[in-house]
């Protein structure tokens, strides 16, 4: 009975965030548009030299994905904080960490997934070889949830501040750096035709680590922000 109602709360929370996102389509498209614009402006800015583009491509796509995630992060808890629904999560009879996980999952599905799906196209645009694009896709698949999970902790800590945007970037970006390094070097290595299992394992390890720790940290940070 109890587990059943928890699953119901979990799925309803995700569905609710979807409905809210659909009613604010412009806001939802913002990070994706940013991602596409930045990556497609690069070839125009640095010239259409295929070797140059291939060399900077993985880094450009990953940096753009990271900044796009940062751009959308504030929305995870901001509106919930302002209208008081955040208090209701904390006062729910379900574990707050699982409700937080539902929120983060919804955030990834709404902002991370579209970015992931469009990335092969941008890989082609930057002239990456097929092997590189494949690995790019896998790194984004493993990496974008990490962006949402780590970001949620930062947002939870800064949601009570009026101008938390700057602090949020300072808090979260250093934690994103290892992921950025491993992911873009994985794509580079793959494009050179070398094995990338080690890179992918490391990114997968980051995902598991974030998945198991971040919901608890986020829930605790929310309590601090609201008290």
């Amino acid at each position: 009975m109890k587990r059943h109602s928890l699953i119901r709360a979990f799925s309803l929370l995700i569905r609710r965030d979807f409905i809210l996102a659909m009613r604010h389509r412009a806001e939802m498209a913002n990070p994706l548009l940013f991602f596409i614009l930045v990556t497609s402006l690069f070839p125009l800015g640095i010239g259409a030299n295929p070797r140059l583009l291939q060399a900077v491509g993985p880094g450009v796509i990953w940096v753009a994905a990271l900044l796009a995630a940062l751009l959308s992060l504030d929305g995870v808890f901001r509106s919930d904080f302002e209208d008081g629904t955040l208090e209701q999560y904390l006062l729910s009879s379900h574990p707050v960490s699982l409700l937080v996980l539902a929120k983060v999952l919804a955030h990834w599905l709404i902002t991370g997934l579209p970015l992931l799906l469009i990335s092969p196209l941008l890989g082609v645009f930057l002239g990456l070889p097929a092997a590189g694009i494949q690995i790019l896709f896998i790194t984004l698949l493993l990496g974008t949830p990490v962006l949402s999970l780590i970001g949620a902790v930062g947002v939870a800590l800064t949601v009570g501040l009026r101008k938390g945007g700057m602090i949020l970037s300072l808090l979260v970006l250093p934690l994103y750096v290892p992921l950025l390094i491993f992911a873009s070097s994985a794509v580079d290595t793959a494009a050179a035709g070398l094995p990338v299992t080690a890179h992918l394992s490391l990114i997968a390890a980051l995902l598991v680590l974030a998945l198991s720790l971040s919901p608890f940290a986020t829930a605790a940070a929310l309590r601090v922000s609201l008290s």
Partner: protein
Amino acid sequence: MTDSGTKSYSLEARALECVRDDRTLFRDLAFRLEPGQALLLEGRNGSGKTSLLRILCGIRLPDAGMIAWCGTDIQRLGADYYQHTAYVGHRDGIKLDLTPMENLAMARALGRPSDMTLEAALARVDLYGFEDVPTRNLSAGQQRRLALARLLVTDATLWILDEPFTSLDVHGIRVIEELLEAHAQQGGMLAVTSHHAVNLQRSPVHRINLSA
């Protein structure tokens, strides 16, 4: 509401102290609340009414003392305490871009569901016919009534209400007062702050004046 009459719940505050910005709002505050009783907090603006309610919710930690539910510290009970409580704060806790039905469905899922259907809960607060109107299009008083309808869709014993009558008209106030009275009569507990006089004729009311 259903099983609260049979079990003897109790809420107890022991030697509570709250300090805000180096000002002591209250100290050595103690009270005990039993089923069927209401606690009415009075006091000037800034006297710590909302802070006390947030301490009762466990959102804010008291600077000294503790709140006990059935004899156990609520900070240790966590979710076991929250399945007995419902809180309507200063902010409504509803999403303006959702319909009243969607809002109540979410509220119900977050707590322990009651037997009342969502439609019946809306009808109780006179919002029948507004099920599928975006909440944004409702008036402030209607939004407040929707927030209070959340109390009905979960099976909570203790209702913690921060200024429930804000932006309600005379009729709305009467509707909500009836709701509170009915809850107390069924063995529920109330902790309410209000600027308005709260008319609960049939239930024992404790009054605590925080500015005294």
